[in-house]
């Protein structure tokens, strides 16, 4: 592995971490779309900043561009507050307007600016190692590595300092306000970090990948944990994995690095979405199937409890009486027998003591719907788990 390859992977990983942190809070605040808006609307800021500084990595350019990001958020909120259009519409109005200004500015000055729309959308990670930072004539590494590294450092410092404030204002804005943690300050703080991160990552990975790096790792992490710190850690992990694996996919396929990283992010999310242990699609489907069976079982047990007549309890009659298909009736009968809820004698089904107690308890729960009872039930009955 060459030095340049290592540097590209390092930059991509740092960008991924810098994006995953604000991204986690954006996802929890249901503001994923705002990152899309910011990533596009900072373009005019970048172009104007570039005219002034002639340097894509200048701190002034980053601040100017981040300012456009904040302006986007303010404009969206202002339009939304008038009550004439909803938030998604406001976002859809603001960012194309700003982005198009950027596109026109680039086109108008195409001859003097080393910026083109392709690079803006997809980034030029492959070229990042060529733009070196020289201090006193000594090469200290690629410029974008330093830019992204600095942004990441600030982001991590802010996260550690204000973790508690971010958590409370994300979970309960009203309580945060009443305790004196101004939700507005935290909101605009998060928006500022998101904007600065977007600008810093923009040059390396482009507008589209920035959004993917912010949202996909956080969305996948959300499906896997019920702990905010673990969610942050998982999002960071997914981000780094996608950055490095994506780089090698691009290498093998000789394709765009940004495109490959984004594809890997998509795949990571897809895998988690399908296979997450409790919130994944397959787990949910399995649970629903279990619940269907258990409701059937309960219906069946209740039928036995309510009927003493022999013909109501004859194996062959059960199917007609409860009106089930043969296969389902057999599944339920087997399940009940396996759990010692019933015994069958001369084709007549009756409840065992255990089955009788279980049925009474379940019915009791369903009728009273009391919390205390549900707790005991949860252990032995799938149906009542969440």
């Amino acid at each position, binding site marked *: 592995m060459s030095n340049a390859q290592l540097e590209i992977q390092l930059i991509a990983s740092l960008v991924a971490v810098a994006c995953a942190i604000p991204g986690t809070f954006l996802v929890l605040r249901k503001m994923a779309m705002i990152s899309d808006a910011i990533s596009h609307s900072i373009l005019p800021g970048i172009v104007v900043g570039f005219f002034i500084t002639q340097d894509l990595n200048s701190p002034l350019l980053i601040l100017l561009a981040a300012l456009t990001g904040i302006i986007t958020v303010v404009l969206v909120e202002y339009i939304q507050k008038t009550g004439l259009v909803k938030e998604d519409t406001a976002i859809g109005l603001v960012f194309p307007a700003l982005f198009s200004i950027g596109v026109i500015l680039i086109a108008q000055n195409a001859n003097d600016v080393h910026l083109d729309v392709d690079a803006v959308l997809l980034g030029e990670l492959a070229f990042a190692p060529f733009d070196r930072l020289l201090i006193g004539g000594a090469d200290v590494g690629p410029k974008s590595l330093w830019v992204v590294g600095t942004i990441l450092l600030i982001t991590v410092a802010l996260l550690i300092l204000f973790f508690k*404030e971010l958590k409370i204002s994300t979970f*309960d804005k009203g309580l945060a306000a009443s305790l004196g943690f101004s939700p507005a300050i935290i909101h605009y703080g998060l928006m500022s970090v998101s904007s600065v991160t977007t600008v810093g990552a923009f040059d390396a990975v482009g507008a589209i990948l920035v959004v993917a790096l912010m949202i996909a790792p956080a969305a996948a992490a959300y499906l896997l944990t019920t702990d*905010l710190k673990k969610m942050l850690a998982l999002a960071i992990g997914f981000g780094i994995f996608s950055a490095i694996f994506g780089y090698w996919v691009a290498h093998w396929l000789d394709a765009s690095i940004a495109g490959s990283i984004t594809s890997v992010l998509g795949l990571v999310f897809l895998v988690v979405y399908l296979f997450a242990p409790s919130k994944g699609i397959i787990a949910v489907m399995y649970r629903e199937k279990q619940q269907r069976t258990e409701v059937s079982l309960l219906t069946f047990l209740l039928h036995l409890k309510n009927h003493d007549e022999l013909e109501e309890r004859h194996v062959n009659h059960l199917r007609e009486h409860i009106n089930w298909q043969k296969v389902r009736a057999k599944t339920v009968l087997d399940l009940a027998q396996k759990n010692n809820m019933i015994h069958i004698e001369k084709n007549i089904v009756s409840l065992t003591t255990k089955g009788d107690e279980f049925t009474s308890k379940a019915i009791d729960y369903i009728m009273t719907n*009391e919390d205390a009872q549900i707790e005991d039930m949860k252990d032995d009955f799938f149906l009542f788990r969440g």
Partner: protein
Amino acid sequence: MKNESYENIKHSSPSDKTSASARVIAVKVDDLTVAYNYKPVLWDIDLEIPEGVLMAIVGPNGAGKSTLIKSILGILKPIAGSVSIYDKPYEKQRQLVAYVPQKGSVDWDFPTTALDVVMMGTYGSLGWIKRPGQKEKKASLEALEKVGMLAFKSRQISQLSGGQQQRIFLARALVQNASIYFMDEPFQGVDATTEIAIINILKELRKAGKTVIVVHHDLQTVPEYFDWVTFLNVKKIATGPVKDIFNDDNLTKTYGINYKVSIQE
């Protein structure tokens, strides 16, 4: 109970408190007007809440009950008027006040546990940046125990029933160890057991000399649960001891001629 007149109920009220004038005023609201998009939802409210009462705020939907609480707590900015907590502005008295928002105002799918939510109640006394430590954790566990939820401390909050979630919110307010408690519809969507558990804790708070203000919907239970009541419908209709002012006259003024329909809900 449905056909019983409120004149009869008031005599069975548990209240034995005397008039407001003799007591310390915990919360004072002066000429408060609050508007959404320049449309006033609260008009010129004057309100004095004496220390140590358990007060219900009642009124029809859209009467501005939640808005009143939120304005007192500085969550909403009034267009006119002022609020004081023990004679000082709210910003200086945050430590004395605990707030229980409506259960529906937060996302219960948020990745956190019951204990962690209760710990949020300690954030106010910690201030910015400082993290909760062992002391805060111990206080939070005690609050969980008080609401009978200690066994659920590690449970993810979406895995709790509506009543359990409300108890967690109550524990979060208890851990603040405040003098004044504001609660926005704490009985909404909870089962009967939880309702009794909550009202018992509120009565305990009053016994300990705390002031408790509750936005309340069920008019039937007002005389049984509360000793003080405020009728609100954009304007303040009346405020005072339940036994003196909880009557057909004020109910009619607040709910209009159809108030009896509301009672039967």
